[in-house]
């Protein structure tokens, strides 16, 4: 068994456009990436970065200009290999005329499951995604979040080894997002490989063993969420309450909300600051470390990209 569940080699997608399709827009440029067996891999990037393009290439919904990919050691053109894959499309939409249970039953028929097993699974999946009460309603009457849930159900219905989800949290309420997170963790516990795209960095940080950051069709970094950013503590934050006036010098640096204050200090000044605040009669509520987050890494990359793009524009004139 190969160690990488998904291997992507030099995957490139260009879309021709304009008069006679002479111009080309590169949506994905020489992507090289592996997703290891049993890991949860987050694929993050801003809108239009090429996340969906990559996933659709993997699913053979679109075809690459160059490059190749293998899933579970098989080339992606291998239809039988698709038994082992679950896929949730971006903004999923399903047959209007079917109910959720019928739709899942229809998809299950492609998977060589015995009829009794099929029915049983469909019921279990609907329950798992919280649709067991709505399964008799035709899908045309489903809300966006409900469609997203059915979409997730059809992706994991046949117990696939590799699950690829394109923005699984989009359109879900907070409870739904929690449920999806739980489902992803459960898949991981069962030894499945999960790759999902998202713009929600906290989800990626919370769930992923590794993330890949893609911006402008190019992969900018792959690694554990913690290693991508400089994890050196960037100071401490003190939260305190102060009733009545005081002339402690630090107070001028704090941000105030009602009787609560928030103060950012360097690590080595922490104890001195606490002394001073206590002397002024403040009640310390919490002290926490300030760390660089994935978000900052991400924003830096995107920011640099924008700056570069505008620089190119200027020099192009």
């Amino acid at each position, binding site marked *: 068994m190969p160690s990488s569940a998904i291997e992507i080699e030099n995957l490139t997608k260009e879309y021709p456009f304009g008069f006679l399709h002479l111009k080309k827009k590169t949506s994905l440029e020489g992507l090289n990436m592996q997703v290891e067996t049993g890991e949860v891999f987050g694929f993050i990037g801003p809108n239009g970065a090429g996340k969906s393009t990559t996933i*659709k290439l993997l*699913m*053979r*919904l*679109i*075809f690459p200009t160059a490059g190749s990919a293998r899933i579970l050691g098989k080339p992606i053109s291998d*239809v*039988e*290999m*698709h*038994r082992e*894959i679950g*896929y*949730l*499309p971006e*903004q*999923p*939409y*399903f*047959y*209007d*005329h*079917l109910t959720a249970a019928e739709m899942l039953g*229809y*998809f299950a*028929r*492609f*998977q060589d499951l015995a009829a009794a097993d099929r029915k049983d699974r469909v019921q279990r999946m609907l329950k798992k995604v919280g649709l067991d009460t709505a399964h008799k309603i035709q899908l045309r009457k489903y809300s966006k979040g409900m469609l997203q849930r059915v*979409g997730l159900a*059809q*992706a994991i219905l046949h117990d696939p080894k590799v699950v690829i989800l394109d923005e699984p949290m989009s359109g879900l309420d907070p409870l739904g997002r929690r449920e999806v997170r739980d489902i992803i963790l459960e898949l991981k516990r069962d030894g499945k490989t999960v790759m999902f795209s998202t713009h929600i960095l906290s989800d990626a940080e919370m769930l992923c063993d590794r993330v890949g950051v893609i911006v402008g069709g190019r992969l900018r970094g792959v690694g554990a969420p913690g290693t991508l950013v400089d994890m050196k503590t960037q100071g401490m934050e003190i939260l305190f309450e102060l009733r009545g006036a005081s002339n402690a010098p630090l107070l001028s640096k704090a941000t105030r909300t009602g009787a609560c204050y928030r103060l950012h200090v360097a690590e080595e000044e922490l104890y001195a600051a606490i002394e001073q605040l206590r002397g002024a009669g403040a009640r310390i509520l919490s002290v926490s470390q300030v760390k660089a987050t994935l978000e900052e890494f991400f924003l830096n990359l995107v920011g640099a990209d924008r700056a570069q793009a505008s620089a190119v524009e200027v020099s192009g004139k």
Partner: protein
Amino acid sequence: MRRAGVVALNTFREAVRDRVLYSLVFFALLMMAAAVAVGQVSIGIEQTVIVSLGLSAISVIGVLISVFIGVALVSKEMDKRTLYALLAKPVRRWEFLLGKFGGLVLTLAVNTAAMALGLLLVMLYVKHSLERSDAVVLVAVYFILLKLALIVALALLFSCFTTPLLAILFTVGLYIVGLYVQELRDLPVEVMSPAMAAFTKWLSRLLPNFENFNVMAMAAHGRAVPGALILQNTLYAVVYCTIVLTAAAVVFSRRNLK
């Protein structure tokens, strides 16, 4: 093949739920009106009128369904993106296409059979009895069904590489041309330049010939259709559909979904 069957059954279910079979109500009303009208005016020509009218209605209703739903079969799934999740399943694109074709042909078969039954009932009502020669009506209906399958295949092919509207126009255009292919074959090639003659000959072979499927005149007068024609039309439809569907599969298998 089994997977194509799964797609076909879903397509059939979709057509039924989209109320395609309601066309039967229209047909029933038309035939009842015709039966009453014929009963009042004509003596001796009931057979001709009822059969011509019934077969025409069966054909027109079938052609409309074939063209419009045939074009929508694939383009609607691409448009609404219902295809995405499906094509990620272990199913090949040509299996999907074949299933879609099979599903609509099944729908048309059920619909057409029901209308044929209705027609026989009306004939029984106006003539008070049915004879063996009336079986020719069933042959005519069978030919209509073959023709419809051919139209569905063409609609499917066009919808694989162009917009739904253009696909409808192409299909209807080709159908109309196909009704007059015989005229093309009968053109006086002797007066043309050799190149022109060759071109005309090839074109008349290439275009679908829908004229052969029309045996309405024979049916209306209760004349038997020769067995050779039944065989020829069946073969023609099977071969032509296979070629058109293969072309559609080739186009569709390379297509990038948006």
